[in-house]
Structure formats: C-alpha cells, structure tokens
C-alpha cells in the first residue's frame, strides 16, 4: 500500500526533520518508489530463519573495570553551538 502524505509527515516528525510541502511530496514519491522496489524480499520464505543483526557476532565483550582517562569537559563543550557554565545550552524543554 503506498505511503500517504500524512504518513510521510508522521515519519518526518519521528525523525525530527523539518520538511516543507514540496520536500514532503518529493519524499512521498521517492519513498513509494523505493518501497515498491523493496517488495522482492517479501516473496522469500524466511520461516524459521534466524535474524542476523551483525556481520561477525560476538557476545560478552567486557572491559576491565579500571579507572582511565576520559574526555575533559572543556574539550567536550568546545564544538557546542551554545554552552554556559560547563553545560550545553538548549532551548526550553520544561515550561515553568
């Protein structure tokens, strides 16, 4: 079933992407074209096949529980577009 414009808007909202009306329509067309192309895996019998989430699977990768050096605060803040008093500054999240 093709993706509606409302669904495109919903996905853009989930993805935190501001898109204007023209872009939304372009993406609707492109998403439908891609998803149309992607139907070929729907015909494969995957019953009982395990999912492979990684190229070379590993389990229980532990690090030594030892103190080390980490990124210093001023270095972490150096690239921030806005910072103050050792903190990242963001627009208001919680109203008073």
């Amino acid at each position, binding site marked *: 079933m093709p*993706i509606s414009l409302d*669904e*495109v808007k919903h*996905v*853009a*909202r*989930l*993805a*935190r*992407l*501001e*898109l204007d009306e023209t*872009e939304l329509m372009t*993406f609707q067309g*492109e*998403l439908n*074209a*891609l*998803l149309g*192309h*992607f139907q*070929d*895996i*729907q015909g*494969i019998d*995957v019953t009982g*096949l*395990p*999912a*492979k*989430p*990684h*190229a*070379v699977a*590993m389990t229980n*990768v532990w*690090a030594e529980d030892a103190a080390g050096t980490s*990124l210093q605060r001023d*270095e*972490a803040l*150096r*690239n*921030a*577009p*806005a910072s103050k008093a050792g903190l*990242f500054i*963001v*627009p*208001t*999240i919680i109203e008073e």
Partner: protein
Amino acid sequence: MVSELSATEVARALRERRLSVKEVLDGTFERIDKVDPDYSAFLNVCRDAAYEGAPAAQKLIDDGTSGPLTGVPVAIKDNMCTTFAPTTCGSKILEGFVPPYDATVVENIRRTGAIIVGKTNMDEFAMGTSTENSAYFPARNPWNPDLSPGGSSGGSAVAVAAEMTPISLGSDTGGSIRQPAALCGIVGFKPTYGRVSRYGLTAFASSLDQIGPFARNVEDAALLAAAVSGHDPMDSTSLKGSEIKTDRLKEASLKGLKIGLPKEFFDDSIQPEVRETLDEAIETLTAEGVKFKSISLPSIRVGVTTYYIIAPAEASSNLARFDGVRYGPRIEQGSDHIDMVSATRGRLFGHEVKLRIMVGTYALSAGYYDAYYHRAQQVRGLMASEFETAFEEFDLVLGPTSPCVAFPLGDEALDQIALKLMDYCTIPANMGGFPSISLPCGFANELPVGMLLTGPVNGDERVLQAAYAIERALPGAVRRPPMP
C-alpha cells in the same frame, strides 16, 4: 617525481636516503596544488600538521627503526576523526567540527610514522555511489573529469589514482571503497568486519561499516591494511588477534586456486563491455591454473533491497546524534527544543541523507518492523550462509566490482534507484562481514574495469595473496590515467 612512486618505493627511497621526509611532503603538496583544483579529492589539506609530523618520521628512519610506511603520505576520508583537522563527513551539519579525539586508525597511522596529508571528499555521511552527494562539491574521475570517480569514498580513490598520495583510507558500508577503486582503476580493499577498529569513524550503519585502504598496487594496500588493523578495546566489535599479516603476501600461486563465479553476478545488469573484459581476465587466469566454476548464490538478487532496509535503519538511529546541541551549527527556530532540532536537521542534512533517515525511520516504525527490518535481517543471514557454503568448496568468489564503468557526473538517466542498484556485487561482503578486494582487470571503452574477489571471514590474507598473484598475471590491467 615523488608523486609517481608507490608507498613501498617512497619508503625504500627514504630508507636509502635518496629522499628526505620533507622532500616527500614537498613533492606531495606540489602535486596536490597542481591537480586537486580540477579533481576535488580533498575537503581539507593538512599541510601544517603534516610538516609538524615530519621530524619524528625522519628520526625513525635515521635511527633505523622505521616501518614499511614511515614517512609515506596518506590521505584519509573525512569521516574519520582528527584532532588536527576538521571532520565534516561531507556534510554542512558538521561544518567546522574539529573532533576532541583521534580515530584509532589515525593513531595507528601516526604510530607507524606515515603522514596524514589531508581529509578527502565523500558523499555526505558516506551515502552515495558517485561523490555527488558531497555537500561541498563533487570529486572528479582522473580518467575523465566529466565522469564520477564513484563513491562514497570518491575523494580517497581520486587522491591515489591521480597520484596525489600513494595510499589512502576509505570506509565501505556497501561497496564505498571497492566501487570507486574500480571506477578509478586502482586497488581497494574492505577487510573482514572487526579487523580494523571503527572507533572514531563516524557511524553510518554500524553492523556494515568497515575501514580499508586504497592503493595503486596490492602490496601497498596490504601494508596499509596491516598498519591500521588490530584489536582495539575502544571498539567492542573489534576482533581479538586481528592484525592483518603481510609476511606471506607473495607466496601464493594461482595454480589450483579454486574460485566460484556466482551466475547472479553475471546477469543482464552487467554492461556487455565490462563482461567481456572480465571474461578475458578469467581466461588468462584459467591459463595460469586457476580452477573456475559457475555457481549460484540466489540471494545476491535481493541484496540491494536487504541493504537499503538495514543500512538506512541503522543510519536513522546513528544520525540522531546530529541535533545542533553538541557539535556543528544550530538553526535557531521556534520556541522549543524539537523545533530547533528539526530545523537544524531539516536544513543542514542533504537530500539523500534525509531520504535514508526517512526510509530507516519508516522501516523501524510500529507496524512495519517485522515486514521490513526483521525480514531483511533474516535474508541477510540467508545470504551470509549461502556464501559460507560456497567458501567450503571454493577459496574465493569472483565477479565484477561494478556492473558498469565510470558514468557521467549529473547523469539524469541515473536516478536514485539506478545508482543504488549498482551496488549489487559489493553488498554481500558487508552483509557477511567478508574480506573483499577490487583490483584492476582491464579496460572497457578506455575506462578501467574492476574485478571483485571475496573470501571467508578472517580470510583477509588469502584474499590479498590471491589478489597479489592475479595482479602479476594481468600486467596490462594497470595504466596511468590521461591527466596532467
């Protein structure tokens, strides 16, 4: 001229005192200044940092403690973090970002005394097959500047093919090292997943991304792969005992080598001229004693679909970190946090990146996860097991790297889907984590054609050995591009 020398030749000239490290750098930057304005391989040339590193490399040589790449200039793709140069990933959303730490591959390169001379052009966040998705400018193919060098590591391929550096590093998520290597007529190698640390490589699709070398010959590629490989505690997917070994590189013989030829690699998608060139090379190798056999690995046909579900799904999650808070520019808009984040991402990501984030978000969203992402992972497992079964009978699997030779920049006949379908030969190696190399095998329409060799997990040495022997058997496959 310094620029014409291979990495091995530069290192030898340095050891024999025919050149100094400073002279090598002078020659390198002279070449970059001359040709890069027309080919756009670099987003950033690191002249000062390179000269600062010269005395230490020279000292290693003077003390007789130099390694095989000491003093050799290297270019690296702009998605690997460097404290001494901006790291933009070819995106406006990271314009001006100077990382607070160096990627492990950068530290490994510097430890060997090789010298990083610049950060190379790329499709934004490594998403593309032509380097036209760079937010800055497209890179151009040394064989003809009107053609694309391929992508996404196009800049790293051009730097080497245009003789600006003898070696470079790229990253390969679905073919982004091997395809540009093929289109530019050089060697490109994607090691087994986990043998080169991804720490400091900006994540695109974490389960597929792997760093690897470009070079003008197999030996140089093997030396650079070896230099950057090895276990890294900073990358939890890094394999133990993963150093790539080169001591037996030159020992393999073609006689008796068993190679499978999946018929799915040789279907109608391949340009007839590319097919002819590859067939001739196969004929030559048969005469040298290689045993070829046609096989079928059916899931190759659905590899592109599988890839374009899994990679965007992982990307949509990985790229969530670009939010205008910790790095990069911010677009101030609206009154709340979500408005600011959405405006920053909406305006500073390029079209292809936004498309893939949308695809990935959709594929992971409620109601679609099972039909797309989960199913794609099952097909991924099927594809890997088909290859693993083939590797029980064959040493390697062979095909074309790209179904076509270099194509024009801005070609309107190539829409986004056509560009994506080009990856069908390279994708399986990323799905299974297999080592895979593209090396020149001849020419079609006066443009280079690449041959793709893929081996089993941790068969990196076998792949490199075979490639080295094949390179000797196909001396006519390597030419210098017709450029100034």
